């Protein structure tokens, strides 16, 4: 049953990847490539958050913790060991996943309000550890000296083109994996919990186990986004793990659309493009960004992609009747 949609998703992902990878062969634009690299990190981060917010109905305010965790784990592994880059990346994601499992084990049984606050508390705790453990993390100065980007199979990630290709592949594969999770039986269970947790419980779903699974997976994928972010800035900084960064992911989810799988990715693109455009023009970027978010929240009342889907579904039946 699920074979066909999975194949369709894989084909869409493949087509998207081919297009993204083909662009530099026709036209090299360093600014565009930087943008794609940043979107890759942010899209994984926001989409993984949406696995919690949109799919499972768990609003986490502390998701940035795992983004930062991935970035620091990867940066430290590359600086302190001679591991190859893919191995360090996989290890960093694995470590983040374990961290998410531990934090999740404490949080997921809580009611939704307390869950939100406790995730925030864990994030603040993690942030404070980064700031105070100066000998390891460099404190508020961040991980300095650059992340050595060792060659992988002839790929030199200090080169922008190679980093672009690497990030595009990782992001598309990561998003495809997340898509499979949301469309799988497990994903359907999560949606059932979101819609009616009592019914799910009566049907024999162990709520905390399913929620913990979602929380752990989401943490792992956020960690993967963090790895890409660390590669882009060639370092890791406490701001990556701070609460405004979690807020950015929540904005991306809300802006793009909570009910569409690609909504957070679109939201990430809009948010980053908006930030870049606005900081170029004015010092009052916070004011402008706040207004845009306010207008979209009050005007559209949903994310952009959700809004477009709503219009399409409204038009489709009326078109048929005409």
């Amino acid at each position: 049953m699920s074979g066909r949609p999975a194949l369709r998703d894989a084909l869409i992902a493949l087509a998207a990847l081919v297009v993204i990878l083909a662009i530099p062969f026709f036209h090299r634009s360093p600014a565009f490539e930087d943008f794609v690299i940043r979107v890759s990190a942010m899209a994984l981060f926001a989409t993984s958050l949406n696995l919690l917010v949109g799919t499972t109905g768990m609003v986490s305010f502390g998701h940035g913790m795992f983004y930062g965790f991935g970035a620091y784990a990867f940066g430290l592994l590359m600086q302190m060991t001679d591991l190859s880059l893919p191995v360090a990346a996989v290890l960093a994601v694995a470590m983040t996943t374990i961290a998410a499992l531990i934090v999740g084990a404490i949080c997921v049984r809580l009611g939704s309000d307390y869950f939100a606050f406790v995730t925030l508390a864990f994030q603040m705790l993690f942030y404070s550890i980064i700031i105070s453990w100066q000998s390891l993390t460099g404190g508020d100065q961040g991980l300095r000296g650059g992340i050595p980007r060792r060659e992988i199979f002839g790929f030199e990630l200090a080169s922008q083109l190679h980093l672009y290709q690497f990030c595009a592949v990782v992001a598309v594969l990561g998003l495809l994996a997340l898509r499979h999770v949301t469309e799988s039986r497990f994903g359907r269970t999560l949606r059932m919990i979101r819609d009616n947790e009592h019914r799910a419980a009566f049907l024999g779903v162990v709520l905390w186990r399913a929620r913990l699974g979602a929380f752990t997976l989401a943490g792992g994928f956020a960690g993967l986004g963090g790895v890409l972010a660390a590669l882009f800035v060639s370092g890791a900084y406490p701001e990556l793990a701070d609460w405004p960064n979690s807020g950015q992911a929540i904005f991306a989810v809300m802006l793009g659309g909570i009910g569409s799988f690609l909504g957070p990715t679109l939201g990430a693109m809009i948010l980053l493009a908006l930030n870049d455009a606005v900081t170029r023009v004015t010092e009052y970027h916070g004011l402008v960004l706040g207004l845009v978010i306010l207008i979209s929240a009050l005007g559209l009342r949903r994310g952009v992609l959700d809004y477009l889907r709503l219009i399409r579904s409204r038009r489709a039946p009326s078109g048929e009747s005409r």
Partner: protein
Amino acid sequence: MVSRKIGRRGVLATGAAGLVAAPWVAGAQAKTLRIGMQSIISGPIALLGTSSRNALMMEQDRINAAGGFLGRPIEFVFRDSKGQPQEAARVARELVNSTGCELLVDAEASSASFAVQEVVRDLGVACLHTNSETSSLTADPKIRAPTAFRVARQGVHDAVAGSLYLADFATAKKLNKWATCSPDYAYGRDTTAQYLQFLKQFKPDVEVITEAWPKLGQPDFTEVITKLIQAKPQALFSLLYAGDLSAFVNQASVYALFSQMTMATPNVDYPVMAAIKQLPAGIQSATRYVETFPDVPENKAWGQAYLKRWNERPTNWSWQNTVAMQFYEEAIKKANSLDGKALAAALTGMKIKTPFGADGTITMREDHTTVGYALGWGQTTPKEPFIIDIKPADWGKIVEMETEWKKQQKYI
């Protein structure tokens, strides 16, 4: 109806596409030489960015009046990074990759300057750090980047010069019991430790009897002030700066703290003095920037020109950015190129004439940092020129102690 709807949506889509595409179209090359400058231009420490920007605007006018760089007029592109490292990295890349900047002036505070350093390492463009004082940025060979240089005071220089002055001062006034009060983050804690290490080396009987670590931007210092007064030290060393320093002095005056202990701080700048209602006399202070030190007509003229144009006085950051442009000017003339490597070769070991030098010159040393800039200590007075009895620091001794420190850190 339907077509109008599509039209509106089409307009929206085109607008959005334009917004997204703008940065990649804007990169078109012009004859004008663009220089990217990034700093904190918004928020509570915006003075860092604005007083740097003001100085650079003056330099832009001066350089363009003299024919620009390599016959091309220069134009600054100013960007606000909000002081966030990952944003600073993005902005630096954007300035070079999409705005077409061929030179960078990194006027960021410490942590963001480290992020810029890594971008510069990747891109190979020439960059002058003009505000970051953290020594390791250039002192640590692992962190130093081939085409990035610091045109700013360096933490370890200040620590040696300050400790030497304060050791003499403490000996003369018999001040052995000290207290410290510095901001609670890496700069405050590390640099305080560095000052104390040197101070104890020069005057071994100095004893620190209490330490206070207020948070950055803390509005109320009552707790800190009462703690300091109760400990009854003879002298207080502080690394508070900008708004924190003026707030502390204003509040401490109410508690008559300055009649009970002598205060010493390296961070007094003109705008800080302006924000203090009644500047107490006798605070031992370093000269970050004062018109009367070095006491040469060019320095005074520059300070007055700045005041006239911007209706406020320059900061330490203003002169540092000015000197950065003087270094660029000389290096570009010498290299006859804007290439990162060529400029790096020209800058290394370069000595320029400038009114902000201790002896009328400042040198860019082989380890990519400036030496020989005006550095002195004196004491405050409530009226102009605000800092008097300025004693210039001994650069021979500074370099000697700095070398020892670098060996301790295993940098050399």
